[in-house]
């Protein structure tokens, strides 16, 4: 796969890798081959057939054909030009001439290619059928405009993993027979298929029930699938695109805010939609629809500002969340050094400690892998993370590897997740009890670790769980049985029926009990895996050569997090697994690297985006307003260890943290002046903000900001780990996680993300308990109690209830202090 080869496209010699598709090779070298249905990271659909090229004298589809050394490719021949023109004419058959009212107009691939192929006259026709539009909630589907390129269903299956869309029968008349003879071959074949299908929902209803990422609408080349919230709001060409980095989770997706004046009377900028480079990055619903969380401030509130200064002088603690930029984190750290205050950020502190503990064995300041590498592997394990809501991009990586890379996945989590289970056939899920994450890591070491190299005490410890046991297996074998059967037969001579004995042999399936010795792994039993687990795992592990482990916040907050961190490092060291850690919030990684965090809150605290004695807030509910993430420039550190720049999409007229810092004796004209000062010893680079790029190259290379350097740290060589504790949580349990599309109060503030706050319970749990949706319940744990409403959630299964953090009306922190799981009593009030 990695062999460099030379191929020739249109007399231009280009270097590429063996097995790379011709289309991608051409695109990487700026050679244009038209293609409609192809999506870079997904499997080729072969629906449009327009990427037809001639390779070594044979017509092939560029999206599908792999390059071989010395290949000679011609992108356009006379015949191919005829095919392409015919294909575009076919696409225009019965396509309504309503570009004036179509949202895609101006960025429509059908418009573009129709012009590119010079279609000025139509030769084909077919009787149309009723194709009236559907309202699918946050999406609007107009089959009349649909060209059935299947990009939506492809991205949903290969990238997102919801499998919500598929092609359904159109019910149209067959094409006239004469076209088969008169039309170019591929165009006819494409039309024949097109005329038989439209897009529909896999659940068979007219109600979309998915994780609402909107990626299908983003990839739609025409105006068939559009976001309901954007429908008929603005023409594409009126919008100005502001390149940015999504500020909702740690994935740090590249997005662009599309802004325009608010309305005729108001010239203030407003964000109309969020766009992404869908060939290279996929967004979740929060990134795509949660954009209007800005904090509109009319003017500088001097009184509040002076109060803030006083508060800062008086305070001994600054409390903050990780939804801030690296520069702001740097300002806070500088303030700590200058004023001698404590910096408290519980969630970042947990992550920081975990990284430090991990580094003691791994010898690196950061985990070794990232989501890009995860996609490229073909066996992925996820531990300690509610993947679909903690970091949707991690879930996409898992799904993409399984569907496109023939990979397999193993998902360990106490909360049952139908979305994860539905990703692909090769996903295995194991519901273990909370607090058993240690056992899971030991199991991974046991299954995949190199026993010869592992420290001997660990090997012995692992071996102590193994025993051979004799099990009785019933096998079905086929046995040859000879039996004598009496048959009635007609005697030819007498003409009478008489009984004759006939000897017959036949194969008869027979159940045989056999006693065999098998290896019995007690770890599996402890985790509650079923008997088939090993069998299925062995099947899934066939032909897998690269492995990835994603770990999440359940481990960072675990009471034995130190031991877990060391185990993770051991797995990285003694197995083929590469580690990716999922930072809990947008910039948890950046904060963990930049700030020197403390544990305890002092007597008087200033809170930044969190409640303090004096509160600075970008949510607009504090004592002094701050700009929200879409109103400020700065950099964010993503899960991919990349420092991504983001720009201000909307104006902000109030004070920002830098103004306070300047008044307190720091000196910088703009917040982004600090980009240059970010600590080099932690892996940052001395780069000026204005020099940081933010785009993707034609071949998919990510040219955004810069990658953090993974600094090596000296290790003591002590690789001892503690044995796992037998503790586990049982009974009624609550878990701290958000529904998909919600991360923080910022996502809650947006108008399009309408998830209701409350305690989430699975339909299964609600049906067997006395509780009903909408009931007010009191949740009581050892830390405290709260009262909230039950919300039924069909995206989880099992008995564990979920408490969200995005709704500031629900003070989940009062109930769950550190570890994300807690036993709780839930009573109706």
């Amino acid at each position, binding site marked *: 796969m990695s062999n460099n080869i030379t191929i020739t496209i249109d007399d231009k010699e280009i270097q590429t890798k063996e097995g790379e598709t011709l289309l991608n090779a051409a695109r990487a070298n700026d050679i244009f081959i038209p293609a409609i249905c192809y999506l870079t990271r997904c499997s080729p659909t072969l629906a449009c057939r327009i990427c037809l090229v001639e390779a070594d004298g044979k017509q092939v589809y560029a999206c599908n054909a792999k390059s071989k050394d010395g290949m000679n490719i011609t992108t356009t021949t006379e015949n191919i030009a005829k095919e392409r023109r015919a294909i575009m004419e076919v696409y225009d058959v019965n396509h309504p001439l309503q*570009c004036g009212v179509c949202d895609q107009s101006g960025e429509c691939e059908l418009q573009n290619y129709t012009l590119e192929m010079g279609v000025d006259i139509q*030769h084909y*026709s*077919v009787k149309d059928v009723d194709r009236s539009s559907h309202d699918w909630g946050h999406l609007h589907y107009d089959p009349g405009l649909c060209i059935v390129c299947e990009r939506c269903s492809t991205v949903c299956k290969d990238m997102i993993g919801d499998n919500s869309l598929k092609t359904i029968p159109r019910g149209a008349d067959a094409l006239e027979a004469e076209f088969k003879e008169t039309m170019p071959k591929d165009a006819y074949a494409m039309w024949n298929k097109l005329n038989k299908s439209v897009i529909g929902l896999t659940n068979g209803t007219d109600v979309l029930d998915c994780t609402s990422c909107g990626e299908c609408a983003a990839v739609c080349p025409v105006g068939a699938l559009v976001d309901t919230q954007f429908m008929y709001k603005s*023409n594409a*060409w009126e919008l100005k695109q502001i390149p940015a980095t999504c500020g909702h989770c740690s994935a740090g997706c590249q997005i662009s805010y599309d802004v325009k004046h608010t309305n*005729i009377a108001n010239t203030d900028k407003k964000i109309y939609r969020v766009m992404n480079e869908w060939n290279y990055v996929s967004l979740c619903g929060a990134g795509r629809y949660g954009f209007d969380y800005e904090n509109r401030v009319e003017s500088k509130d001097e009184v509040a500002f002076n109060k803030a200064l006083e508060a800062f002088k008086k305070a001994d603690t600054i409390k903050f969340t990780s939804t801030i930029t690296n520069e702001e984190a740097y300002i806070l750290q500088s303030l700590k050094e200058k004023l001698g205050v404590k910096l408290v950020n519980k969630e970042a502190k947990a992550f920081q400690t975990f990284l430090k503990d991990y580094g003691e064995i791994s010898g690196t300041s950061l985990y070794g892998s990232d989501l890009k590498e995860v996609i490229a592997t073909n066996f992925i394990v996820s531990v300690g993370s509610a993947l679909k809501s903690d970091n949707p991009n991690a879930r996409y990586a898992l799904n993409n590897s399984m569907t496109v890379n023939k990979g397999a996945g193993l998902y360990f989590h106490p909360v049952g997740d139908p979305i994860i289970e539905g990703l692909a056939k090769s996903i295995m899920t194991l519901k273990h009890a909370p607090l058993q994450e240690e056992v899971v890591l030991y199991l991974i070491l046991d299954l995949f670790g190199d026993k010869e190299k592992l420290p001997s005490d660990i090997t012995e410890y692992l071996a102590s769980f193994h025993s051979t046991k004799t099990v009785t297996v019933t096998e079905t074998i086929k046995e040859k049985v000879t039996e004598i059967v009496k048959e009635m037969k007609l005697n030819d001579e007498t003409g009478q029926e008489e009984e004759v004995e006939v000897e017959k042999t036949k194969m008869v399936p027979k159940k045989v009990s056999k006693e065999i010795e098998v290896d019995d792994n007690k770890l599996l039993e402890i985790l509650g895996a079923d008997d088939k687990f090993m069998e299925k795992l062995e099947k899934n592990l066939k032909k897998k050569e690269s492995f990835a482990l994603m770990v999440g916040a359940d481990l960072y907050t675990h009471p034995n997090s130190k031991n877990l961190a060391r185990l993770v490092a051991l797995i990285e060291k003694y197995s083929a697994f590469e580690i990716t850690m999922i930072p809990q919030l947008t910039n948890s990684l950046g904060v963990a690297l930049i700030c020197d965090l403390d544990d305890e809150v002092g007597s008087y605290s200033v809170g930044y985006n969190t409640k303090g004695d004096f509160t600075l807030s970008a949510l607009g509910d504090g004592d002094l307003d701050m700009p929200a993430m879409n109103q400020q420039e700065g950099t964010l550190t993503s899960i991919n260890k990349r420092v991504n720049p983001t720009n201000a999409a909307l104006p902000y007229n109030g004070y920002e943290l830098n103004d306070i810092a300047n008044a307190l004796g720091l000196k910088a004209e703009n917040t982004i002046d600090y980009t240059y000062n970010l600590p080099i010893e932690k892996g940052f680079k001395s780069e000026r903000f204005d020099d940081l790029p933010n785009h993707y190259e034609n071949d998919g290379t990510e040219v955004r900001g810069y990658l953090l350097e993974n600094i090596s740290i000296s290790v003591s060589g002590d690789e001892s780990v503690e044995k796992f504790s037998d503790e586990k949580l049982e009974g009624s349990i609550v878990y701290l996680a958000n529904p998909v599309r919600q991360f923080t109060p910022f996502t809650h503030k947006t108008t399009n993300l309408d998830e209701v706050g409350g305690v989430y319970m699975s339909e299964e749990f609600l049906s067997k308990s006395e509780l009903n949706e909408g009931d007010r319940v009191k949740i009581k744990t050892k830390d405290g109690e709260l009262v909230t409403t039950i919300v039924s959630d069909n995206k989880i299964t099992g008995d564990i209830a979920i408490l969200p953090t995005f709704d500031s009306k629900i003070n989940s922190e009062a109930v769950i202090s550190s570890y994300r799981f807690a036993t709780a009593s839930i009573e109706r009030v």
Partner: protein
Amino acid sequence: MKDEQFNNRNVSNEYFLVDIEDYPTEPWDKFKRVVKRTFRLELFVGLWVVMREFFKFEIHTVSYPEEKMPIGPRYRAIHEMKRLWESDTERCIGCGLCEKICVANCIRIETKRDENSRKEVSEYSINLGRCIYCGFCAEVCPELAITHGGRYENASEQREHFTMYEDMLTPLDTMKVGNQLEFEGFGAITPHEDERVKKTPLAY
């Protein structure tokens, strides 16, 4: 080339050289001119001409604003929004091409989704203070919805002066009696357009 022909200013009998005195140079001469001009009461000569014509009632100009000159169909004054003859509904589909093409950047359009899931124009304004009446909006309009009309009186106390959608739209009563005027200027359909169009085959 000789310059005699240029020197000979006595071209024809119809032309004559105006006898203009040389400008006085001496202070005394200048003083004399001032006195002469002051006391010859030339002002009243002019006034007399006006009064004479006033009483003769021989008026050769258009008496604006009572009377107005007829405006040609291609004249480009304040915009009009037309309605469909068939249904009296607005022709404008909200495509926004006029907003895009406007060189003076004076058109703004706002659209929304109406209750029938169709695109609807919710707000439309033209800043007449900025408009240069170039006619591009009328030319680009695919529906012949925005056109220029003949109303050219758009003086305003302010430089910014907006006209809104409702003001430009043909009133329904005008529509009812069939008095909407079709625009024959930029962007109107050329005669015999049908003969030039390449027909799309239909499978019905």
